[in-house]
């Protein structure tokens, strides 16, 4: 099995996203179980750290990354970005509309869920982006030499 640079990057990205989601989920549930007064500040720090970490990682990856891809890989990359965009919209729609029907229109949601919604959408888009790259590459992968 041959693994291209694009696929390697997609596997790494997938691992990072899954790790971020696991750490973020554990951190979030641990913090919300703690004293409610301190939760607000800690959550803000936590969210900023996560966003900056992910942003730095994405920027570092983006710089010069596409220059090393050939035209087929660039096409796969761009198509995956489209899938990720659609996934982000669908995820955002679900995460915003489902609570409306589950909790009802008159209910209240805590504000600290807003950054969580934002981060979750980011992670979902990244997850789909990486998965789409791997799926498209696997579809074309035919090891006949």
């Amino acid at each position: 099995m041959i693994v291209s640079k694009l696929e390697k990057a997609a596997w790494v990205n997938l691992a990072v996203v899954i790790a971020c989601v696991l750490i973020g989920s554990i951190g979030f549930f641990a913090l919300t179980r703690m004293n409610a007064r301190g939760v607000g500040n800690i959550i803000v720090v936590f969210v900023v750290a996560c966003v900056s970490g992910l942003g730095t990682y994405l920027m570092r990856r983006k710089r010069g990354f596409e220059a090393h891809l050939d035209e087929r890989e660039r096409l796969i990359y761009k198509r995956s970005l489209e899938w990720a965009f659609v996934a982000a919209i669908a995820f955002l729609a679900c995460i915003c509309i489902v609570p409306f029907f589950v909790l009802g229109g008159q209910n209240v949601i805590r504000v600290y869920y807003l950054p969580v919604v934002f981060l979750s959408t980011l992670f979902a888009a990244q997850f789909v982006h990486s998965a789409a790259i791997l799926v498209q590459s696997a579809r074309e992968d035919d090891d006949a030499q």
Partner: protein
Amino acid sequence: MPSDRLSNQIRRLRFENGEMTQQQLADKAGVTRQTIIAIEAGKYAPSLPLAFRIAHAFGIPLEDVFQYDGDANPSRPGPDSAR
């Protein structure tokens, strides 16, 4: 709607050129081996510049490497049809 199908002779040409490997052809064309595999299997239609680079790698004209099997007479009117 015309059916666009591009066939190629890359596999045959590789073997006729000293059993050139996919990696060697990829290096000459400036793409990855996976791209050559996809083109050879007909799963990816290369751009015109890449098609020319592949033809140059074998030292033969483009039409000897790639053949268009689609509809030869698409229904779209040509420039003369407006007269």
